[in-house]
């Protein structure tokens, strides 16, 4: 323990020395501006440079560019200021304090390119913002607790940042905290971040019109968790190996579009997308693949679920106490069971493709003239007796389902299921495009190699 600490100290000292040498070798003009801070770095070679005095010394509205090296938090930024790393990733702010490593209390603060290591316990976030219009870009955060917390920080943005828990993998999720956590922060933007191994990777509560786009969220409890927030836009995110990819609860007017939620299957309660008490929301063009339940909808009304690809899940979609929803143009392929529905009769379900359903299309309009009805028997049974889940898809269960299939009023029914899939199917990753590019590059290389061989042969002969 102490040995490694000493080693770390030595390494840090070496880094400072190296950076000092590098700076000294640079042209005079550049060295001059860096000199005062460099001096400080030299004075405290053993310990990281305290960050707070540098912030205090910087004039309001200035850009504070930090030399490569280690700096000590906690620090509070109480005036408009931009704090930037001279080179991305070369500046590390360390803090072993229970307070946030960096606290932002003034509007319009910018942080850029910093690495932040917060080791002061689980309750202090690495970065805490409690003022509007903050911009956090390219941060690389390792935290015991929360990564970034935004409270009443309207219009703030978190972009291109990486957040992961410093706790060893495994263990209980409750020992972790949320990666990016918003509370009463409206009109915020969370874009192109990577969040892994946290409690909820991205959590927003009481925050309206937040845009969550192009993030990668993985190995956390919930990838994206939305509570009591309206107008959230969740688009182009990748969620993998979370307990649930997107947990969308008590919302109005949310758009979930073009996301991929794959392999949410390790936990017995896993699902790709869960809607609970959602209204007037749209779930469109997502890929949910390899999850325990693809899309789980409970107590939700007046939503549209359309054009999604629901593949290779245990259960494709589960509907509970949900009415007035439109479910159209989706395709179910390779799921163990397509759908379960209970107390969800009054939905408009049509023109979906269900690969396990054999329809008859007599009039040739592409849709079956037979309806596809979803038997609620299994769900009703396991709701009361969860242990009966071991009988999932067993022949006896199929028999009983048939036996209790006489009264079909109140069942969820696809009125006109498609007889063939509407689109190509395999889209479980976004890499298909780059794969094609790689293929082209490979072919080019091969051609070049052939050319070299042929030419060299000709020369030898």
């Amino acid at each position: 323990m102490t040995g490694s600490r000493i080693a770390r100290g030595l390494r840090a000292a070496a880094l400072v020395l190296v950076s000092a040498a590098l700076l000294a070798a640079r042209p005079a003009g550049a060295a001059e501006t860096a000199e005062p801070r460099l001096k400080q770095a030299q004075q405290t070679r053993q310990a990281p440079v305290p960050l707070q005095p540098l912030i205090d010394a910087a004039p309001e509205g200035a850009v504070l560019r930090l030399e490569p090296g280690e700096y000590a938090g906690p620090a509070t930024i109480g005036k408009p200021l931009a704090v930037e790393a001279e080179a991305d990733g070369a500046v590390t702010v360390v803090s072993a304090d229970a307070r946030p490593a960096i606290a932002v209390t003034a509007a319009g603060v910018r942080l850029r390119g910093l690495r932040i290591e917060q080791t002061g316990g689980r309750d202090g976030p690495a970065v805490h913002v409690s003022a509007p219009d903050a911009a956090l870009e390219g941060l690389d955060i390792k935290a015991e607790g929360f990564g970034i917390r935004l409270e009443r920080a309207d219009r703030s943005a978190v972009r291109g940042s990486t957040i992961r828990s410093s706790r060893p993998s495994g263990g209980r999720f409750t020992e972790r905290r949320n990666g990016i956590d918003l509370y009463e922060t409206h009109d915020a933007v969370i874009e192109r971040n990577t969040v892994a191994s946290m409690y909820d990777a991205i959590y927003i509560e009481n925050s309206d019109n937040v845009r969550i786009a192009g993030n990668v969220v993985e190995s956390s409890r919930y990838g994206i968790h939305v509570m009591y927030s309206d107008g959230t836009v969740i688009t182009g995110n990748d969620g993998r190996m979370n307990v649930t990819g997107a947990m969308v609860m008590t919302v109005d007017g949310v758009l979930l579009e073009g996301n991929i939620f794959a392999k949410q299957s390790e936990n017995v309660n896993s699902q790709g997308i869960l809607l609970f008490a959602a209204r007037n929301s749209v779930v469109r063009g997502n890929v949910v693949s390899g999850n325990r339940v693809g899309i789980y909808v409970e107590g939700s009304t007046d939503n549209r679920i359309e054009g999604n690809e629901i593949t290779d899940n245990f259960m494709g979609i589960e509907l509970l106490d949900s009415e007035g929803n439109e479910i159209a143009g989706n395709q179910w392929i390779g799921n163990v069971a397509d759908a379960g529905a209970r107390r969800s009769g009054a939905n408009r379900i049509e023109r979906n493709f269900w690969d396990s359903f054999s329809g008859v299309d007599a009039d040739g309009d592409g849709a079956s003239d037979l309806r596809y009805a979803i038997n609620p028997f299994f769900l009703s049974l396991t709701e009361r007796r969860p242990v009966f889940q071991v009988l999932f898809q067993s022949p006896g269960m199929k028999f009983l389902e048939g036996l209790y299939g006489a009264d079909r009023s109140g069942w969820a029914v696809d009125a006109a299921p498609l007889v063939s899939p509407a689109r190509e199917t395999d889209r479980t990753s976004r890499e298909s495009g780059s794969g094609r590019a790689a293929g082209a590059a490979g072919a080019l290389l091969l051609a070049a190699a052939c050319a070299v061989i042929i030419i060299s042969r000709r020369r030898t002969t």
Partner: protein
Amino acid sequence: MRNRRLALTFALVMAAFISVACGGDEYTARAVSEETDRCATCNMAVADDAHATQIVTKDGRALLFDDIGCMYAWLAEHGDGDVGAAFVRDYRGLRWVKSEKAYYVYDASFKTPMAYGVLSFADKSDAEAFIAEQGKGVLMTADDLPNHSWAVNRDMDRAHGEGAHEHDAGHVGDGPGHADDGASHGEGHGGDGAGEHGADRTAGRDAGEAYANAREGGAAA
């Protein structure tokens, strides 16, 4: 000799009979399994923390909830006909307490998993100390809970904003009254499980309506 043996047997049988007859209320709370437990109302994973609550049904099933508000939403929907016992946890020590014996502190700003803002304590003194420490919060007993508005903090905000104050007015006005109730009901309360359930049941429905209203209000706003 024979008499004595007979007497002994009789005594044993009586002892067994009495222990069975009087030990009727044998519902116990089980530990939370974070891997597998999900809230019976909202589907969220149940964390093994002070907010977890559970209902043990008369046939021995345990229903877990991640927030006491979810438990009352469940009671409002299903009634408590099947409920053997309901448990909450002591905010300080995490031990399970029968819900009717616990004390509760509510403030809209307290953070709980589903934002109902109600915390539970085994001891009244701890609850009072917590209110003093936080400088906010209303003390309630189990009797007050069915009449509690069960508004999540967002609903409160919206209701204020939109001027939909039916449940608000009730809630604010009821506050001090509840505290009095709590003081007088506190003692004569523990014993009669059956009667209490009957009374709670209708109250639970009322709470359910209040809950539904609150949700409607929130959604309309």
